[in-house]
């Protein structure tokens, strides 16, 4: 579902108009001297029959160009005398061939399909094979042709080949492009109707489209090869029709179903159209409604609508979109149903929404109330959008001829408005469906602003037009015969025309209204096309005067401001109110419910939750009781650091993180989803109030995404305020009453850099032999006879020995003690004491009881200190830790749930935040907070509706047995016959449940014909045994098979996010430089793109620019004009030549791959999975979960210097994000870690510190700044 889609129409003058679902004005297509007869559209592709009865195609709204990669393999064989040469054996493949060698792909013969295409650059060689760089000629070698090609030439290499690639681009975007006529003489067989559809043919490969047309001779033509990457298709083929059938109109639905109408008013249906046979098998006749002739028919997914010659509207019952391919009854339905209203034309759009043109006033109507359950809808509502004053319309020509255009046009418009009103007031049989007359006021603007000339897009014209030498200067003189695929009207004003398709215009639409002259001209429509129009039935566009307009005018109405002023003045009493008490005192409130506590091993315990909250005191508690009323525990709400939803189907749950409690995590299961949502919202509200969090977080926040799609944010700014007056930050540890005798360790979150101080006070026991203080590094795993952890680095060991009457200072390096420094004993048993350890640049200074006791030269860098251990028979009163930067431990990081449902969030240093959801659509953070189930929490500013789609997959497994062939009876040891991908978990179609009530299914269970590895006709994949590679072709040895079923579900929610562009993205990376933000992204197809015009104030930016690349990517990162990308096969590239003048750079260069000997799973591939860049290093996650760091990456050394590997952690990672010295990573188990000890000298840091238990999928620390 796109946030912005278009409804097309033709008026009685043959002019084409478009109405955006996010706008409220009809915009005219630029008039090029060509009227149009009919239109047909699917999103981004509009086909039309022109006034010259020829077919035109209009591709629009795509943010990145359609690009097709042409490949050709150059093959050579080694001959004894000549060496390698292009002369091949007669049995060999062609010199230039396709990859499998079966087709001749001579480079000279690969031509552009039509003039609408242009080459991007010349043929070039691919210089990498599976991420391995090849020499400059790009040859790969093999023993013989159908063999594995390798990078190295060997003595037995008899053949070699290399791959040439070249991209072609469809350049006729946003303009009409002529399709070749059937005959040389275009007048010989003109067209009368055209229709496009087929974008949702069940099981068909994505991008399939089907186009049908009718010629003046009554022939039905089908366009072969039309798809989203080949918008024009290849050629027309004739589809025979039954004798005595004279077809006048045709319509193809999204499922490929074709209905056609005969001149006699009868209808015929094409049966058997499915993914394997897009043209179908045969025509079937359908009975017309009695005593009437059908004049227009339109096919939807589960619906067919028609209009008859007496203007009656008919709905065909019983159409089943998913079954039309193999069921006749599903294709022809089972009866006509008359719908009230009189219409002359009708069109079915996305989700079976219906638009029609009224008979009486020729206005556009929308059928409201159409849902999958009620396809006939409820009533007709008139679309009352303003009109853009036509540049060419005869009714508006008075404007240009008159001396005072503004004045005249106004009077003209006013007249028209009145006319329209009278039209509406005319009652007819279905008067109810009329809406109230519009009360719009025409914006008065100086005439010079009437038609703003934008010079911004001038470059665009050049870009698209330059290779078209044959494009005629005068569009009127253009003829389709001269040039197939030529572009109409490149010379005119594509800028103003493309504004029809301005993708993001919705966001700032109001400004446009004020810039242009819009009027409520009397529009007489003759044709409507809704095939590309996706209406959100919950939030209908602002097209209907009775809903949104009315409210908008209320806000500015005079009576409202009068009332508001009076209300405001009520409370200014001119009496002294100091002795007036409040009637209602602020009280705390309590809320309780029955719930279950879920323990780690999924055991539930009944309990009663009780929440107490006092707003004035800003304090609250959460008490958990047992069912008999005894207290289990009580939490202070201020201790909760994060609240996330963790529901499973049928089990609505919330997870609370309380790092200071021994449990750390509390999982609560509620009785109902409603209750879970209420508690979720209330807890987040209270927790944010306690911690003073609201609105937009500061720019240097960390963003994380949980595996449940929640977006959380930690804002370090509030915690940074605890600075004392010396510019030092202090943290007091709670040590009173802690057991020191057996050792007490506490983390020093900022390490112990020079300037840090540790202050202790306490009392020695009477019986005391020794006590010591260690300032130590992280624990590391040691494998001896059993696995244990040990601290190997102790930069300062301060040991007070009463038995030896001495004080020993020492250092432990790599597990071995160094030489000791001894000092006399300053303390007596039983004495109260204070110790202060100050870290200086060269030494530790140790003060005992406020006087200097000794100093100790650094033997190890104090940066490596991560914790302090106090051990011995002492009692501690206080322990304070001073640091030069803010001390924020994980227990003080309050993670606020921001709202929305996403998969990835990327931030940058000036507060621009982008997100990607599971279906790869892109969102930009609006600065708001809340929405969805957090309704009302942070106000409604910036809260927009959001949707996301996820696909559920299950596998059907079968085993072959000699008697009955493949059956669903497996061996006892086999996996479940219905399982997940691993086979370990049982999954069935019937028992697959949705996560919450905000999810709903948007498809049925379907067999996936696009499973990786290939499938046969029924979707099966074969293998010799279960955990084995699967292939699509059955062979003799195959004993098992499986197929994948999938079903799509959609979530409908809200959040502080707004759609940015319509391009689906895999990955995105942001980097802020003052005000401007560089945004680079990877599209779903693996292409690199960057966004122009992104600044802190315009976070959405303008449009995507495409970056040429011969490689396909999966991940990208940018920092300070350094750009690294990860290729699909795990190879790493950097972009050369990126500068402010040339933001796209010049070309991609391969980087030496990290080779890590230390692996968790030696079998796993070692390619790179993702990359994150800082100013000085690149952090990459390899496919086996190891993190590698490339040092010294800078603008001068784009590829960095050397690889270093982090080997201190046993567990694999799935994500890493870094900026400056902050490095945050998510482990495979979903826990969030922060790297401590990363400094300019030590790029890889010292240790990981657990920050959040997750489960998380993504983290972005890209907003951090030092």
């Amino acid at each position: 579902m796109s946030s912005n889609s278009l409804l097309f129409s033709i008026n009685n003058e043959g002019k084409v108009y478009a109405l955006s679902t996010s706008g409220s004005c009809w915009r005219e297509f630029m008039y090029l001297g060509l009227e149009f007869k009919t239109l047909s559209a699917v999103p981004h592709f509009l086909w039309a029959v022109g006034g010259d009865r020829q077919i035109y195609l209009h591709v629009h709204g795509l943010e990145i160009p359609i690009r097709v990669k042409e490949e050709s393999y150059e093959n050579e064989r080694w001959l004894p005398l000549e060496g390698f040469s292009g002369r091949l054996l007669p049995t060999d493949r062609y010199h230039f061939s396709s990859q499998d060698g079966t087709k001749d792909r001579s480079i000279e013969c690969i031509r552009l399909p039509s003039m609408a295409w242009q080459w991007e650059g010349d043929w070039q060689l691919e210089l990498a094979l599976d991420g391995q760089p090849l020499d400059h000629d790009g040859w790969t070698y093999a023993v013989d042709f159908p063999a594995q090609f390798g990078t190295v030439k060997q003595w037995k290499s008899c053949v070699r080949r290399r791959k040439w690639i070249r991209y072609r681009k469809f350049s006729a975007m946003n303009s009409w492009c002529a399709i070749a006529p059937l005959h040389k003489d275009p007048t010989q067989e003109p067209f009368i109707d055209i229709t496009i559809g087929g974008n949702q043919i069940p099981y068909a490969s994505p991008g399939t489209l089907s186009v049908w047309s009718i010629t003046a001779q009554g022939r039905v033509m089908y366009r072969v090869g039309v798809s989203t990457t080949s918008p024009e298709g290849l050629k027309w083929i004739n589809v025979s029709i039954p004798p005595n059938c004279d077809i006048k109109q045709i319509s193809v639905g999204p499922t490929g179903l074709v209905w056609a109408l005969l001149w006699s008013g009868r209808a015929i249906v094409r049966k058997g159209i499915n993914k394997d046979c897009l043209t179908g098998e045969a025509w079937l006749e359908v009975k017309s409604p009695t005593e009437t002739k059908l004049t227009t028919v339109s096919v939807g997914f589960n619906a067919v609508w028609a209009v008859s010659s007496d203007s009656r509207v008919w709905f065909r019952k019983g159409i089943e979109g998913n079954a039309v391919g193999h069921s006749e009854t599903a294709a022809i339905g089972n009866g006509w149903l008359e719908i009230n209203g009189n219409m002359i034309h009708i069109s079915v759009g996305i989700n079976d929404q219906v638009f029609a043109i009224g008979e009486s006033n020729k206005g556009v109507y929308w059928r409201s109330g159409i849902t999958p359950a009620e396809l006939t809808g409820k009533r007709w509502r008139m679309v009352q959008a303003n009109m853009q004053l036509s540049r060419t319309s005869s009714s508006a020509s008075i404007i240009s001829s008159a001396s005072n255009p503004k004045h005249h046009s106004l009077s003209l418009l006013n007249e028209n408005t009145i006319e329209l009103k009278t039209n509406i007031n005319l009652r007819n049989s279905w008067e109810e469906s009329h809406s109230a007359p519009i009360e719009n006021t025409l914006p008065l603007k100086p005439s010079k602003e009437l038609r703003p000339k934008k010079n911004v897009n001038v470059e665009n014209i050049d870009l698209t037009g330059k290779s078209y030498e044959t494009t005629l200067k005068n569009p009127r003189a253009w003829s389709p015969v001269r040039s197939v695929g030529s572009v109409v009207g490149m010379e005119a004003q594509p800028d103003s025309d493309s504004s029809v398709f301005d993708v993001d215009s919705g966001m700032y639409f109001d400004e446009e209204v004020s810039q242009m002259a819009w009027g409520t001209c009397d529009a007489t429509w003759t044709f409507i096309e809704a095939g590309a129009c996706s209406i959100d039935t919950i939030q209908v566009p602002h097209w209907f005067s009775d809903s949104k307009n009315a409210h908008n005018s209320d806000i500015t109405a005079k009576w409202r401001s009068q009332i508001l002023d009076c209300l405001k003045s009520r409370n200014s009493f001119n009496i002294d109110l100091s002795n007036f008490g409040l009637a209602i005192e602020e009280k705390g409130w309590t809320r309780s419910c029955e719930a279950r506590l879920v323990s780690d091993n999924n055991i539930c315990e009944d309990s009663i939750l009780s929440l107490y909250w006092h707003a004035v005191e800003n304090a609250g508690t959460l008490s958990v009781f047992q069912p008999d009323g005894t207290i289990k525990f009580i939490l202070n709400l201020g201790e909760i650091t994060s609240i996330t939803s963790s529901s499973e189907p049928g089990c609505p749950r919330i997870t609370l993180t309380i790092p200071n409690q021994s449990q750390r995590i509390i999982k609560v299961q509620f009785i109902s989803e409603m209750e879970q949502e209420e508690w979720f919202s209330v807890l987040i509200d209270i927790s944010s109030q306690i911690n003073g969090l609201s609105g937009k977080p500061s720019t240097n926040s960390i963003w994380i995404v949980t595996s449940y799609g929640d977006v959380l944010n930690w804002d370090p700014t509030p915690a940074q305020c605890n600075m004392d007056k010396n510019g030092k930050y202090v943290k007091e540890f709670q040590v009173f009453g802690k057991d020191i005798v057996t050792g007490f360790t506490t983390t020093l979150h900022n390490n112990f850099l020079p300037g840090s101080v540790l202050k202790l006070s306490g009392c020695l026991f009477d019986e005391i032999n020794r006590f010591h203080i260690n300032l130590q590094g992280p624990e590391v795993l040691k494998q001896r006879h059993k696995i244990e952890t040990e601290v190997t680095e102790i930069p300062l060991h301060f040991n007070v020995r009463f038995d030896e009457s001495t004080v020993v200072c020492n250092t432990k390096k790599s597990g071995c003690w160094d030489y000791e420094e001894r000092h006399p004993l300053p303390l007596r048993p039983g004495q109260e004491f204070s110790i202060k350890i100050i870290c200086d640049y060269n030494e530790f200074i140790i003060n005992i009881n406020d006087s200097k006791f000794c100093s100790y030269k650094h033997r190890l860098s104090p940066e490596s200190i991560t914790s302090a251990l106090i051990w011995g028979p002492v009692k501690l009163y206080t322990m304070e830790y001073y640091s030069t930067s803010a001390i924020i431990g994980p227990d003080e990081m309050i993670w606020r749930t921001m709202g929305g449902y996403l998969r990835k969030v990327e931030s940058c240093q000036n507060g621009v935040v982008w997100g990607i959801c599971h279906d790869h659509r892109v969102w930009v953070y609006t600065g708001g907070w809340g929405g969805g189930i957090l309704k009302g929490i942070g106000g409604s500013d910036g809260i927009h509706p959001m949707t996301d789609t996820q696909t559920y997959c299950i596998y059907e497994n079968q085993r072959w047995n000699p008697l009955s062939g493949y059956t669903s009876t497996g061996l006892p040891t086999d996996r479940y016959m219905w399982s997940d991908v691993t086979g370990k978990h049982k999954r069935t179609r019937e028992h697959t449940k949705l996560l919450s009530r905000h999810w709903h299914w948007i498809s049925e269970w379907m067999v996936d014909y696009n499973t990786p590895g290939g499938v046969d006709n029924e979707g099966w994949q074969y293998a010799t045994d279960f955990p084995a590679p699967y292939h699509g072709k059955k062979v003799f040895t195959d004993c098992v098979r499986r197929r994948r079923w999938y079903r799509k579900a959609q979530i409908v929610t809200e959040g502080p996010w707004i759609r940015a562009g319509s391009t689906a993205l895999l990955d995105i990376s942001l980097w802020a430089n003052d005000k401007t933000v560089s945004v680079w992204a990877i599209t779903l197809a693996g292409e690199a793109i960057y966004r122009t015009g992104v600044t802190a104030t315009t976070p959405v930016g303008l449009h995507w620019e495409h970056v040429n690349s011969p490689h396909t990517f999966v991940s990208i990162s940018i920092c300070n004009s350094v750009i690294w990308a990860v290729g699909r096969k795990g190879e790493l590239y950097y972009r050369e030549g990126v500068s402010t003048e040339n933001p796209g750079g010049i070309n991609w260069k391969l980087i030496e791959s990290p080779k890590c000997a230390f692996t968790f799973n030696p079998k796993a591939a070692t390619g790179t999975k993702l990359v994150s860049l800082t100013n000085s290093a690149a952090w990459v996650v390899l496919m086996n979960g190891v993190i590698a760091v490339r040092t010294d990456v800078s603008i001068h050394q784009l590829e960095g210097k050397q690889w270093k590997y982090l080997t201190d952690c046993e567990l694999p990672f799935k994500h890493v994000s870094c900026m400056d010295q902050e490095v945050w990573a998510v482990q495979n188990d979903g826990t969030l870690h922060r790297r401590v000890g990363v400094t300019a000298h030590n790029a890889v840091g010292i240790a990981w510190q657990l920050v959040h238990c997750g489960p998380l999928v993504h983290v972005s620390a890209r907003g951090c700044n030092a």
Partner: protein
Amino acid sequence: MANDREVLREIWDGKLPICFQLAQEEIMEIQQPDPFYVMVPRLSYFPLVTDKMKRHFLRYISQENADNEMWLDYNGQPLKWHYPIGFLYDLFCGNDPQLPWTLTVHFTKFPETILLRCPNKDVVEAHYMSTVKEADVLKHRGQVMSTMQKKDHNQLWLGLQNDKFDQFWAINRRLMESHGDNEGFKHIPMRIYSDDGITCQRLICPKNNDGSRKTVHQLLSELYPDKAEVNLRTHGVLIPLDTPLQWLSEHMSYPDNFLHICLC
């Protein structure tokens, strides 16, 4: 939809300074009791805000009357507790504001013929909920209230009782939505009181016959075709005559979902 939060909030925050004085004949002590000053939300009801005041005066009255039901009067006119406080003020002092509003407190001689008995707050709640239901019947044929759960009803009442705007409007919002395709309520719950004590409650449609929104002016000319100068006051504000009734009902109804309007 009642989505003009600014207006809603302003109405919710409306307060009245009130000075309670014990009726002279009730005073049994030699020492005169101090008047009791309090800021009272306009939208509330007297039994919800007078607990403290009652405790303040109990010391001064005869102990045998202490268990009697308390009642209030203004200038000798008993105040009906089942009307919102702001409305009572508009009714009695709308034309000549008098602040603080001085009310007399009685513990004896309960005017049985004029006032309803109110032994406790549950009675207020019952009365309040029944009024909300009545309003919903007029607006949506009672569909919204009947689909609400008991705890929603509770939240509505507690929101009002504890002066919690968000708590109240989280539920009340649903009562202020228009249902079905037609924008607007079926009828507007509205009571118009003239100073002669006559209450007027009619079936009032928010739309004119031609489908346009009915304004206050149009309503007045229907109800009082012969009166020339009519003004309506609610929440201490004179309503502009071109205000649409639908908007008025959504935004300026009292918490009981009725528009209580004084004719002046």
